[in-house]
């Protein structure tokens, strides 16, 4: 299996464009939001082309809607394919969620009931996407705030079955595991124990915010804070079990100077290195 080397990256966000264009930002890869670059031309496409000359790129989508009851959108896949063909990304990913139904677009990652019927819909969507792109998709575990009465399985059981049926890879977001675990009362350790780590190609790190909603504390996946300690602990566990996964920090709001994110990325590097050292068998 090709492609293991680069390991630590950042999301490419507007406040940092100039620095990424100017020179050697010490990252092994960058991740971009696919839809921001699914445009005909102009400055955004040009920036992405220039960044691509320096770094491997991962394309991360938010509008595939792999869980739409009315299926994935062929026109969307055609446009994504054209971006993939030009950029030749290391990975292409989107989320286990839905964002479109009957012409309505939510622009928010909406939850799916974990049932056999949903699994059939999602697997058909992943198959159609992988066929249209001619390559493997990575699917990311979402943060969620409600759960369904009809649920027949846990999220990790759903992911495991999806991987087995479609051959897709996983983008494991350890912050999302923590956020959903707090909101729904499951143990993140149990979640990680059940993940098929051989399928994990990317890992996301991010921060969240605590909010009082209907008299109850909930965590919301805001990507506007540094990575907190409990999320680092899950990362250490995840990177030990998927040592070749590419890891990156997602920061979409309250965006700090690039140096602050690079310092956080060094924490990720150090955690992974500790594990590398632990796993070395003395001669």
């Amino acid at each position, binding site marked *: 299996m090709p492609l293991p080397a680069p390991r630590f990256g950042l999301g490419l966000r507007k406040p940092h464009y100039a620095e990424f264009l100017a020179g050697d930002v010490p990252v092994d890869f960058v991740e971009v939001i696919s*839809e921001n670059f*699914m*445009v*005909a*031309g*102009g*400055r*955004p*496409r*040009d920036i992405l082309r220039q960044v691509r000359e320096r770094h491997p790129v991962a394309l991360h989508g938010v*509008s595939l809607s792999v*869980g*739409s*009851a*009315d299926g994935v*959108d062929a026109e*969307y896949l055609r446009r994504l394919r054209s971006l993939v063909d030009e950029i030749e990304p290391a990975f292409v990913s989107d989320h286990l969620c*839905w964002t*479109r*139904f*009957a*012409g*309505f*677009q*939510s*622009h*928010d990652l*909406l939850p*799916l*009931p974990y049932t056999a*019927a*949903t699994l059939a*819909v999602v697997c058909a969507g992943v198959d159609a996407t992988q066929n249209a792109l001619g390559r493997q998709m990575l699917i990311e575990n979402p943060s*969620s*705030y*409600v*759960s*369904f*009465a*009809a*649920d027949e399985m846990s999220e990790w059981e759903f992911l495991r079955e999806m991987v087995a049926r479609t051959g897709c890879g996983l983008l494991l977001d350890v912050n999302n595991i923590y956020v959903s675990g707090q*909101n*729904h009362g499951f143990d993140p350790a149990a979640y990680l124990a059940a993940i098929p780590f051989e399928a994990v190609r990317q890992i996301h790190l991010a921060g969240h915010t605590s*909010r009082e*909603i*209907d008299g*109850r504390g*909930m965590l*919301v996946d805001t990507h506007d804070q540094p990575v907190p300690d409990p999320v680092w602990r899950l990362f250490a566990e995840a990177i030990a079990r998927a040592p070749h996964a590419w890891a990156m920090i997602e920061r979409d709001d309250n965006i700090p100077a690039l140096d602050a994110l690079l310092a956080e990325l060094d924490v990720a590097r150090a955690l992974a290195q500790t594990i590398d050292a632990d796993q070395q068998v003395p001669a």
Partner: protein
Amino acid sequence: MSLAAQQAAFGAWLHRADDTAIAPALADARGLAVYQNNYRGSLMACLAEAFPHTHAWLGDEGFEAAAARHIDAHPPSSFTLDAYPKGFVATLRATWPADPEVAELAMLEWHLSEAFVAADDRPLSPNDLAELDWDRAQLRLVASARLLHFASNAPAIWSALAHEADPPAAVVAETPTAFIVWRADFICCFRPASGAEAAVLPGLAEPRLFAELCEDLAGEHGPDEAVGLAGEMLARWMADGLVVAVIG
């Protein structure tokens, strides 16, 4: 409840804040508000980001009320949020029918943002002229170019706001004025179009021979003046980066 019914019900919650269909399908519905917040918040942010000068002209209260009404009436239907601002121009026109500068400011902002991501072109430059075969070479506008008509002085208001100067009072002219919006390299621009330009530019969305362009102008200006006029316009278009030569 089928997955399709559930997604329709979830959509009703986001769009109309109606949870009667979705709530019974949930084991724990308390987090529903998070989704409603995210949905409306991202649409509000999208409109505010797309129309900074319209926002400044109307003030927070007027802009936010109009944006909230627009979101109530128009759920998004494109995979990209970039497409969402387009319809807001019509909402503003309907909300302020006696103040055309409001919708026209928004129209200008919308077309500038369209030009920003329009397809790349290599515009015709004076250096290309020597090698151009005028019997075969057709001219067309660059993909980013649009001709817009304004009843008000919205372009002047836009320019003042963009330079953080005091905007002029809104004025409605007796006859509409035409402006060209386009992107030169990566810079979006606009300028007034002359009467002759306004007459021929719509035809240049599709490639045309230079001779045909002269014929179009001859009706209004006579054949002799038409050739000179066409030559002047071509020189200006090359300086602006507005036309592409297509060898048919």
